[in-house]
């Protein structure tokens, strides 16, 4: 039964990768990365039991905890870019 889940997860990873390669916007790619992260968590939990090594769950736990940092960094990146552009526009107006 684990194989069914692992297979479904792998296929979904493939689909997410197609979405990441096709785009069209950068946000679709960020969405795919995020989806990929949760799929990796599921895949790793299942592999841990397939291999009979429950201590591998630490890996899935690590991803569950820190995978969203990347997406927050993206948000911060766009916010500061928007702020920078607004500031540059204001400076241009002043000049």
């Amino acid at each position: 039964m684990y194989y069914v889940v692992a297979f479904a997860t792998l296929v979904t990873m493939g689909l997410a990768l197609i979405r990441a390669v096709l785009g069209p916007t950068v946000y679709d790619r960020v969405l795919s990365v995020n989806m990929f992260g949760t799929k990796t968590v599921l895949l790793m939990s299942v592999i841990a039991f397939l291999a009979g090594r429950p201590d591998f769950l630490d890996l899935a736990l690590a991803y569950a905890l820190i995978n969203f940092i990347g997406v927050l960094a993206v948000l911060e990146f766009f916010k500061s870019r928007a702020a920078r552009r607004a500031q540059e526009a204001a400076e241009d107006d002043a000049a």
Partner: protein
Amino acid sequence: MELLGLYHYWVFAVLLMIGFYAVVAKVNLVKKLIGLSLFQSAVFLLYITMGKVTGGTAPIFQDGNVDALFSNPLPQVLILTAIVVGISTTALGLGIVVRIKEEYGSIEEHEIQERDRR
């Protein structure tokens, strides 16, 4: 089946050369560093692949069972440290690129060379 046993190595070779292509062909310095980290990951993959033993398990003893078949721990040790070293050196490279951008106003190789000639 004999040939499929080499699939991991083929992937290694292709990844290595994709990274190499980015390093030699691209003119953007950040892209070169991205290529370098692909190259690096390919090497990691080669090492870990060589350490795998069919039917083996991760080299961590479970419940004191020391006689099971284990994969080779040595490549894992080398690569584990190399990953952290890799991110630090990539950061160093990015630091140099940022300084180049500040001094030259560009991170495209040919524009930097042009400014140097002047």
